[in-house]
């Protein structure tokens, strides 16, 4: 056990525990806040593995933007302070979610253990330079495709937001 192992285990445990809290808490906003803890701990895992750039972008994008948007959206609803049971899911759904989650975890664990077993691997491919060479070398086409997809989604969202919902005169005609 090196220091890295210990740190990785701690960060991973925090991440998993807060993720569980995020889906099980009865306080609506608390689940978004636990999500922040989980994402920060996950970025800690990336840090320990030496993928500094990925870790920082994880913080910048997920904590700095995505969760803030989630919080903003929650504040626009009637997110109450204290426990609320209005949004509780039925027991069946919870059981199904548990089964799916456990199955995915088992699948991932089996694949990883069968692929790597107990081998010791040096993890050193995560530096910013290495990442950039891979991203803009080997993986440049998927990367460009993804950015085109995001651009299309962005323009579409803008178009939807600016689209007039029902012409004013036709709406008036319908009333008559």
């Amino acid at each position, binding site marked *: 056990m090196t220091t890295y192992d210990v740190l990785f285990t701690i960060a991973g445990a925090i991440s998993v525990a807060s993720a569980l809290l995020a889906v099980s808490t009865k306080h609506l906003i608390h689940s978004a*806040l636990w999500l922040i803890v989980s994402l920060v701990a996950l970025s800690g895992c990336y840090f320990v593995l030496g993928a500094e750039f990925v870790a920082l*972008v994880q913080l*910048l994008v997920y904590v700095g933007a995505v969760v*803030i948007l989630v919080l903003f959206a929650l504040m626009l609803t009637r997110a109450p302070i204290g426990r609320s049971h209005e949004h509780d899911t039925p027991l069946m759904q919870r059981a199904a979610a548990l089964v799916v989650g456990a199955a995915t975890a088992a699948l991932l664990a089996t694949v990883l253990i069968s692929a790597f077993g107990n081998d010791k691997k040096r993890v050193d491919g995560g530096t910013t330079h290495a990442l950039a060479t891979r991203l803009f070398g080997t993986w440049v086409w998927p990367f460009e495709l993804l950015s085109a997809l995001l651009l299309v989604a962005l323009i579409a969202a803008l178009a939807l937001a600016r689209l007039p919902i029902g012409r004013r005169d036709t709406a008036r005609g319908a009333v008559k």
Partner: protein
Amino acid sequence: MSDFLEIVLRSACVLAAFLVLPLLVGQTEHKVMAHMQGRLGPMEAGGFHGWAQLIADGVKFAQKEDVVPLAADKSVFRVAPALGIVSYLFALAVIPFGPHFFGANVPGSLIWVLAVSGIGTVGTLMAGWSSGNKYSLLGGMRTAAQLVSYELPLILVSASFAIAAGSLSLVGIAHAWNPWWLIWQLPGALVFLVAATAELQRPPFDMPVADSELVMGPYTEYTGLRFALFLLAEYAGIVVMSFLLATLWLGGWTGPFDHAIGWLWVLIKGGIFSFLIIWIRVAWPRLREDQLQRVAWLGLVPIALLQLAITAVGVVVTSQ
């Protein structure tokens, strides 16, 4: 063992800078604003031109009762002020005062500063929501809307500086700096200054705390030390943003005799930007919410994108 000692020493220096610099900026704000408005500002505390005013303020805040409203979400309410202050402490740790004079040398320190100051905004949101007060909630929502809008131009122009230097590290960027940047990166620097003022929710971008309509926005229900922490976080934010811009656009420690007094250059350059941010507060009236969004999306983002294009062209042309 010497490594350990070095880490402790560096951390202590960062903490000392974090406790001193924001107070200096706060005192400067008191005096500069007062003189710009034809007043004297604090004159009594400490004797000489009221130099101990903020220390007296601190003592006053510490004596006040720490009230948690009955309707508040207590745990979130208590944790919120800490987030803002800790995030700026982390940000200050990577700002270089010289080629070897910094708290920590992270290879991606530019993104580090931007990422951890994003965590600080979560603190404001938590404060706004957990107070159990409609003014606070409105303030929190305005904060979220404003910070998401202004984060984009801030990151875009930071990317422009990083591309120009070919490095994500603040030390690397300061090393790569040359005087041409003063013109080449000028639009980016202006966008950065405006967006940073907005990120700090300083006037004229203080719609979230607009005191004439929202009392004090997300901070309405806070008293005593927790309220002081929010104020301290604001001044720490000015320090971090000013020194960041000084490193990015003015080359940090670069200047005459910089091997001996590099740290002094950083302090002077950062001080200039802190002064500008204070001056902006006095000079412009508060922007309305829609004007605020308009400035971000129709003003700053296009200029930032243009700056990014100019930088990219410049880098490609000069690299051949």
